[in-house]
Structures are given as C-alpha cells and as structure tokens.
C-alpha cells in the first residue's frame, strides 16, 4: 500500500506523512525521484530513520519518533511550520483514517465516545490546508466493519477533503460522481471490494467499461 502511494508522488513534491502507516511511504519512493518530507513539528527535509546510536531526542517527527534531517533541511518554529501547511505550500498529505465518506469527508481523530480523551493534533490543519489529501488505511476495521462509508459517523476532521484512498484491497478516487476504483490488489475483484465497502463504488480501472 505504502509503495502504491509512493508511486503517485511526483518528483519534486513537498509531502507531509501522517503518523503510523503513512510514515512508511518515504522508503518506497521510486529511484530517480526526489520528494521533500515536511514534519509539522518544525522540519522540512526529513531523512531516513536514524541509526540506533544516532538518535536525538530533539529531532523527532509528529509521532514523536526519532528522525534525521537531510543535507538541505531547515528547522523552523510551529507557526512557520503550519504557515507552510495552511498557506497551501505542501503539495500532498498522506493520512490514516478511521472513516472516509463517499464525498471525501474524513474522520481520523476521535471516535466521539463520551469518555474518549479528545486529541486532534494537526489533522484538521493538514486537511484544510493541503490541496491533495491521500488516505492510507486498511480497507476495514479489525472487526471487518467498512471504513469507507456513505457518511462518517465519527466526528469529522474535515469535509470533502480526501482525494484518493489507498487500502489493502484497492486504490479508490473520490470524484464528483462518487467513489471510483482505480486499481485492485492482486487477486482481488471488484465485487469483493464493493462487499467490504459501505458506499457504492464505480469501476474506473484501466480496461473497465466504466
């Protein structure tokens, strides 16, 4: 999945990778392409994971894991960092999701349960400020419930913000005519993807009649 996302990142893109699965994308960028990774807690130019003996507790990513900085990186404070996000300077954001709706609504910060500790971090800033939002997620919950729905039931992170969804089953575009399946995992058929999705899908992959 992460490899699939990486293939869709063009040369020269500025990219913000969310916590969790999306962190894996950087390592799969195809040879010959260069992307610059933005870390919202104040780094442009995140490099590969540090060697165990090169960990610096003051050089971390948004998930608070140690990272490195490439030659040509820059550090800056939080307001400048979010000015990059909110001022539409970052090209692509790859985020995890709890739920995605067929109109591109995203819920990825809270289940809304009464005793949950609400914690939003930078998610709402990312989806409001970055033009291209890719969601990278398992197609269903651990219990097999669909995460892609007609409407989100959890509190939203942002409205109509998701452009494309990458799951273990398929790559799905959010379009004005609905959710369009662009690609499926090896051995997976359209029917199966539809069965495990809580919203209508349209076939739109190469060779289909859509």
């Amino acid at each position, binding site marked *: 999945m992460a490899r699939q996302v990486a293939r869709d990142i063009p040369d020269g893109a500025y990219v913000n990778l969310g916590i969790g699965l999306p962190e894996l994308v950087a390592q799969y960028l195809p040879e010959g392409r260069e992307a610059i990774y933005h*870390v*919202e*807690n*104040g*780094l442009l130019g995140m490099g590969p994971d540090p060697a165990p003996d090169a960990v*610096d*507790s*003051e*050089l*971390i990513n948004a998930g*608070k894991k140690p990272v490195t*900085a490439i030659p040509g990186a820059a*550090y*800056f*404070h*939080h*307001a400048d*960092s*979010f*000015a990059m*996000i*909110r001022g539409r300077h970052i090209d692509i954001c790859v985020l995890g999701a709890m739920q995605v709706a067929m109109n591109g609504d995203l819920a990825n910060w809270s289940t809304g349960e009464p*005793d949950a*500790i*609400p*914690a*939003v*971090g*930078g*998610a*709402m*800033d990312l989806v*409001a*400020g970055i033009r291209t939002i890719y969601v990278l997620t398992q197609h269903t919950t651990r219990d097999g419930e669909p995460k892609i729905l007609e409407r989100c039931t959890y*509190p*939203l*992170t*942002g*409205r109509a913000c998701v452009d494309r969804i990458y799951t273990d089953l398929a790559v799905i575009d959010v379009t004005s005519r609905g959710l369009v399946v662009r690609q499926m995992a090896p051995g997976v058929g359209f029917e199966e993807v539809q069965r495990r999705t809580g919203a209508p899908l349209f076939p739109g992959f190469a060779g289909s009649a859509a």
Partner: protein
Amino acid sequence: MIDKRVASAAEAVADVHDGATVMIGGFGEAGSPIELIHALIDQGARGLTVVSNNTGSGDVGLAALIKHGRVAKVICSYPRTANSTVFPEMYRAGRIELELVPQGTLAERIRAGGAGIPAFYTATAVGTVLEAGKETRSFAGRTCVMEHGLTADFSLVKARRADRYGNLVYNKTARNFGPIMCTAASVSIVQVEEMVSPGEIDPEVVVTPGVFVKRVVVVPDPALESQWVREGRSYP
C-alpha cells in the same frame, strides 16, 4: 547594563501567581522546559491555565504539575500521548478543563497574541465539532472561523543558547513552540544549556531576539523526560 540572567529556576518562576496563564513550550519532551516546570511545582502556584501542545507523560514535568492539582485548565492540541495517564484520569474525573485547539490554530493564535493581532480567520476546523460556538465568515467563497490571539502572563521555554540580552537559538525540532511563546507572554522565562557573550550568536541566526525574553536561567544538563519515565521516577 542589560542582563537577563537569573541565578536559579526557583528565582525565575518565583512570581508566578495563582490563576496565571502559563505557556509551556515543547512538543512531547522535545523543548519541554522540565527544570522550570519542576521549579513551578516547588513554587506552589495553583489554578493555572496552561497553554501547551501536550499534557506531559509519566509522572514528571508537565504531567507532574497537572497531577499536583495546580492546573485548572489546559489549552492544548493533543492531550494524550504514549505514557500519558495523568491528564486522562483528571479529565475523566472532571477535575481539569480542556480547550481543544487544532495544532496549527494553536500556533497561529499564539503568534497572533505576540504580534498584537486580536483575531484572525482560518479554514481549519470548519465543518467539524471544533467550529462550534465560533463565528464563521466566507472569504473568496471559502468558509473560515474567527480565532482569537492568545497571550499569557508567563511562558516557560527551553532553548539551546542565550546571551545576556536574551537572544536565543534552539536545537533542531525542540524549537517548536518556543519562539512564538516567548512573544506572547508578558514574562517569558527561558532555560538554556549555555550562556555566551553578546555577539557570539551571529545577528543573522538569532531565532528569538532578546526583546521577547525577560529571564534566562542556565540548566547545563537538562533532564530527559523519557528517561525519567522509563526509570519510573516522579517529581518531586
């Protein structure tokens, strides 16, 4: 002669009053001014409103300040992290108030407070529960919410190096909220690992100009929050 150095963390936070609003720098432990927070615990001020991105971890630093019942309210973007149990328990027990703010809006509100901007508009949080109760307005067809600048009585910040004027440089991503929090507080208090003479910090590379800093205290070898947590230590 201008000399913003004070002798100890205790002296630096001596005048924090009950009910004060205190901004506390850091993103997780990176940039968290742990010795200043511990001095504030010793000092005893209560009923504080704390502005900080997180709520600390384990039983040290900001988590310990909260655990000791000194904090009435936190203004925060992400009040739970790995190893954070203090805030969740207090919050569920209804013993602490939370104003949840998206991280970028939090940063921009602090920057605005320091820059004399009472309010601004942003698209962040539009169409979400965090829009509730806020004015909205459309600009060029895009709905935005009005957000207010944040100021504080004190800020506690960690930097790498200072001179006697209070000019500061930071270390890597520990910079995070420090520079903007220095601008937004009436009294900004900074712990640094090292003092240097004026001019040793090149005027081109100063991150926080001294005008934003009131007091500097040297803590040459600051504690690592994560290490204390791993070791099961608590403060005091």
